[in-house]
């Protein structure tokens, strides 16, 4: 049976659907949003894109903290008595309808003067009249139409971010100078000895010189800086020969025009810098909307409700001190380690551990920071401040301060070490030769060698290959932090997986029944009993059981944390823990179980298993020949047997690992020379992800949560990891080939240089030609790899 999708959010509508205005809605929330839009003549929202909406969330009291002046001050960009401007991050922004509705907010509330969406960053910039509405009103309005902004502790700290536009300026200047210099040096290419050209060529040359000044001293300064840094730490990185080339080009050209020796190489100089910057620009463009640097701050709320003498006041999370009474509402995150005082807690630790089944807690139990309360309101008493809590302390580990990219000697740098030496040697030898043969040409030859050998093509190979592959991976839902991750991926020899939430699917669990078969009457009663309960286990069991006619229960009684008792027609059913149902639990409780008894007779139990992601076996089997594999889990050994059945025997299975243990395990193997890729998901893997040579976070919804990592993998392509790894190996091959081509160009150029016949026109042809052909080659080759990746794996 196919279900009609909801007109607003596109979710399949079940029996509880609502018909309104000849449209079907899955819930009241969606209908309300539609009503708001249709009242304000904004139904065009549904024409641009089908079912673009999201179900509005319950936010009662959640944004009370936005009434506090000091919090508002930190969140807004600009504010005076009448106008405030704030930029809010809205994860739901995903289509043109979203842009349209958010930019027409002033139709819903005329006090919002202007709203502008940045689709790439998933933000909306609101300008509103403060005398009429507050930031809180604006946020509530957004939430009520299903665009709830995401405000976390991180917003408070970073505040106003400055956008770094330097690369665009530099690229602009280099491109501008390149074009103009090209145009001015054109007459000289053809060596026409016309009278007026002879007369004005000095003027032309000095104008070219003027154009090249900002290029050398502003646009190219990063290369000088990086070369200087490299030399100081004894590294011959690729920027050393580049900086040398630029410097020699500039000095020689200046001397040439000063003493009227020739026209100089200003065209090649500006062109070179332009192409190099283009490569840099290409490599730098990554995903604005994803953050790879997240720590606990981006998960935690800004403020929380404190209870003092019966009054509820919002306070900032950093102001929480030991002993504070806090109120946690449904769907709110617990920011500190605490003790449960009042209410029934159902804590979802899936952000932390990846475990999707919530944990039941009773008053007096200890709650750890990072859990999300998912049933009703609770009161807790703080044990530790935010910084001292168990989870947040993980971030004080040194591993988070390490810059992985800087430590990694990449392919280009490795090559440039030899390259620079060879070039210097050639320059020296040819200089020596000309010293005896024709001393007047020594300077000419030596500088020509350094100019022509400037490794523009080599420097461009990696940025364009990685940059393009990065985009291809991104389209296939594997998002890398930066281009160097691809190279790191290709060198990996060990892959370590987290268990819960990584190799198991978060939203699915399976249950197997073990015991006396239930009669159809009993099945009916069981389903009806479960229907009334909000416990997550009841919910998932209810969804798993076959559809039954629902019978009306004559009695129903739920004991939180233990189980449910219900009766119908003189038959009594008890569902819950072993103790509740009245049997001795002989097994050590390793698995999540739900026991059932009918008329006080024990029937059996449902055992919940994490369901593993599809294609897991295939993935491990295809990886096992090339990589060492391990599964490392914070859970107990309950799943060991299942995993042993599923995975190749060479896979190491390690259980009962604390977050620090995972980190240590990786560090230990790295010391032994392994290069490790860690694949995890929860916050508790954050340390391991940072320690691994490549840390990959698996995420069911890439817009919402993922810990700090080098790459984010959408869960739907999890079973294609092997394909991504092999594609990154192909990238290395492409780069090696383009190195080979650049050498060919260099050899041709060196022939001219060593024989002392390097004319500016040859340099002006050879340098852009080599750069452009390398760019074309790498782009075509990576596109081919990308297409093969898609075809072979049916992505």
């Amino acid at each position: 049976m196919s279900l009609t999708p909801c007109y607003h959010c596109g979710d399949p509508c079940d029996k509880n659907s609502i018909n309104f205005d000849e449209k079907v809605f899955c819930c009241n929330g969606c209908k309300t949003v539609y009503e708001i839009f249709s009242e304000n003549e904004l139904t065009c929202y549904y024409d641009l894109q089908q079912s673009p909406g999201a179900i509005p969330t319950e936010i009662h009291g959640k944004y009370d903290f936005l009434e506090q002046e000091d919090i508002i001050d930190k969140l807004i960009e600009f504010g005076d008595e009448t106008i405030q401007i704030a930029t809010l991050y809205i994860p739901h922004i995903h289509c043109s309808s979203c842009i349209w509705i958010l930019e027409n907010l002033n139709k819903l509330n005329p006090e919002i003067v202007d709203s502008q969406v940045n689709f790439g960053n998933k933000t909306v910039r609101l300008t509103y009249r403060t005398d009429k509405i507050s930031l809180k009103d604006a946020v509530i309005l957004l939430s009520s139409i299903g665009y709830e902004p995401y405000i976390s502790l991180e917003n408070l700290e970073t505040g106003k971010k400055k956008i770094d536009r330097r690369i665009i300026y530099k690229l602009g200047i280099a491109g501008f100078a390149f074009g103009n210099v090209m145009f001015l040096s054109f007459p000289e290419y053809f060596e026409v000895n016309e009278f007026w050209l002879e007369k004005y060529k000095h003027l032309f040359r000095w104008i070219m010189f003027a154009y090249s000044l900002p290029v050398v001293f502003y646009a190219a300064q990063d290369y000088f800086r990086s070369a200087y840094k490299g030399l100081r730490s004894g590294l011959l990185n690729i920027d050393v020969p580049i900086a040398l080339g630029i410097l020699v080009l500039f000095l020689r050209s200046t001397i040439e025009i000063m003493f009227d020796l020739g026209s100089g190489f200003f065209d090649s100089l500006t062109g070179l810098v332009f192409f190099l910057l283009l490569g840099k620009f290409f490599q730098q463009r990554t995903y604005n909307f994803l953050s790879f640097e997240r720590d606990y701050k981006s998960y935690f709320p800004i403020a929380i409700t404190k209870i003092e003498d019966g009054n509820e006041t919002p306070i900032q999370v950093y102001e929480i001190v030991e002993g504070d009474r806090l109120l946690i509402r449904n769907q709110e995150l617990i920011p500190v380690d605490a003790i449960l005082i009042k209410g029934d807690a159902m804590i979802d630790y899936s952000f932390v551990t990846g475990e999707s089944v919530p944990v039941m807690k009773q008053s007096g139990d200890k709650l750890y920071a990072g859990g999300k309360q998912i049933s009703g309101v609770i009161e807790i008493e703080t044990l530790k401040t935010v910084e001292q809590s168990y989870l947040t302390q993980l971030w004080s580990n040194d591993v988070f301060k390490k810059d992985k990219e800087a430590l990694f000697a990449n392919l280009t740098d490795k090559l440039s070490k030899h390259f620079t030496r060879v070039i210097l040697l050639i320059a020296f030898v040819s200089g020596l030769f000309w010293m005896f043969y024709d001393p007047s040409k020594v300077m000419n030859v030596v500088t020509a060698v350094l100019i022509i050998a400037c490794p523009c093509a080599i420097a461009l190979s990696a940025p364009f290959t990685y940059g393009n592959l990065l985009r291809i991976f991104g389209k296939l839902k594997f998002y890398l932090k930066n281009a160097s991750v691809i190279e790191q991926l290709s060198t990996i020899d060990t892959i370590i997986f987290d268990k819960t939430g990584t190799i198991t699917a978060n939203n699915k669990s399976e249950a197997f029944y073990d015991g006396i078969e239930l009669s159809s009457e009993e099945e009916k009663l069981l389903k009806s009993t479960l229907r009334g309960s909000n416990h997550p286990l009841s919910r998932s069991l209810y969804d798993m059981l076959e559809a039954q006619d629902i019978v009306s229960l004559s009695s129903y009684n739920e004991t939180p944390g233990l189980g449910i008792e219900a009766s119908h027609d003189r038959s009594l059913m008890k569902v819950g823990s072993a103790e509740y149902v009245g049997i001795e639990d002989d097994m050590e409780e390793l698995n999540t179980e739900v026991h059932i008894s009918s008329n006080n007779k024990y029937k059996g139990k449902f055992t919940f298993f994490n369901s593993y992601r599809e294609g897991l076996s295939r993935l491990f089997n295809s990886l096992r020949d090339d990589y060492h594999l391990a599964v490392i889990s914070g859970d107990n050994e309950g799943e060991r047997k299942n995993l042993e059945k599923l995975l190749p025997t060479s896979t190491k299975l390690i259980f009962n690992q604390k977050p620090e243990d995972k980190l240590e395990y990786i560090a230990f193997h790295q010391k032994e020379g392994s290069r490790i890729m860690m694949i995890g998901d929860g916050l508790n893997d954050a340390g391991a992800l940072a320690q691994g040579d490549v840390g990959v976070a698996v995420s069911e919804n890439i817009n919402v949560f993922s810990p700090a990592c080098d790459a984010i993998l959408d869960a739907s392509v999890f079973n294609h990891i092997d394909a991504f790894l092999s594609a990154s190996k192909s990238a290395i091959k492409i780069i090696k080939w383009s190195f080979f081509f650049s050498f060919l160009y260099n050899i041709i150029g060196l022939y001219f240089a060593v024989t002392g016949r390097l004319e500016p026109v040859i340099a002006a042809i050879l340098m852009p030609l080599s750069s452009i052909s390398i760019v074309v080659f790498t782009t075509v080759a990576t596109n081919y790899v990308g297409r093969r990746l898609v075809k072979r794996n049916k992505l």
Partner: protein
Amino acid sequence: MSVIYILLAISIIVAIVFFAAFIIAVRRGQYDDSYTPSVRMLFEDELVKDKSDKSIETNKD
């Protein structure tokens, strides 16, 4: 032939004017978001349609 000085001066001035325009555009953030404007541009029609809907309604009234 000294007209070349004038021509050169003009060419440089024109080039610099465009360059300055580019720098100002970058500075004002026109290059920060290269996607949304391309979508926003297409919404002009939707807004007109919206208005015409209103006029139809007022006609009915």
